């Protein structure tokens, strides 16, 4: 990914800002999550989100989700300009309701996973991923 110097700088500034402010999902993130849940109440438990505490590069961040009994799991990067990341829909032959992938994070932020369970209920898990700032360059 070729980032312009300016974009990199903006990203770094974004990171700094994210670090100062206490976490609050952006309106865009809240909307994206609500679109997935249909506005239903979201509980906790039964969903494991695995992400690095510190990502060496925000361009390629490995993450995993696991929610036994889920129908689907959506992932959101609440600090990205567009918070949606992916939705995993599990079919009849899924061996487990788990998946791993690699995602892009535009700076330090919370990654949120929301699972839709077989009974129609929703659960949520989130983890902060600190995206590093390089020392070199302007």
């Amino acid at each position, binding site marked *: 990914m070729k980032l312009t110097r300016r974009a990199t700088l903006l990203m770094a500034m974004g990171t700094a800002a994210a670090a100062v402010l206490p976490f609050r999902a952006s309106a865009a993130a809240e909307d994206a999550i609500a679109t997935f849940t249909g506005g239903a109440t979201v509980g906790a438990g039964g969903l494991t989100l695995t992400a690095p505490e510190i990502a060496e590069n925000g361009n390629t961040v490995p993450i995993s989700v696991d929610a036994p009994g889920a129908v689907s799991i959506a992932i959101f990067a609440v600090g990205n300009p*567009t918070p949606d990341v992916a939705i995993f*829909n599990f079919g009849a*032959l899924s061996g487990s309701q788990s998946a791993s992938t690699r995602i892009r994070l535009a700076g330090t932020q919370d990654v949120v996973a929301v699972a839709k369970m077989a009974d129609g209920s929703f659960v949520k898990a989130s983890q902060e991923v600190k995206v590093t700032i390089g020392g070199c360059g302007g």
Partner: protein
Amino acid sequence: MAENVTPRVRVPRSAAAGETITIKTLISHPMESGQRKDSDGNPIPRSIINRFTCEFNGETVIDVQLEPAISTNPYFEFESLVPEAGTFVFTWYDDDGSVYTESKDIAIA
């Protein structure tokens, strides 16, 4: 249109009937997010893989909706039940209308 798009999958050659196996997939693709600008400051249009599916003998294993926040060269790892011998079919759908597929047979050991 994205160039040199090549799908890759890793599936065991055989499994016990009813066993759960791990599958890995990787497709070479730039996943152009639509949020970047070229050196002249013009936006580079979005061009991503937007959906990935895995089926076994016609039944869905997983069906993934991808957004631009999925990294270049999209990678997935997931698990599948193997009730019988058969064929996995993997399909990637590109924004530009291209569809890439790969299939792998699995035997019952």
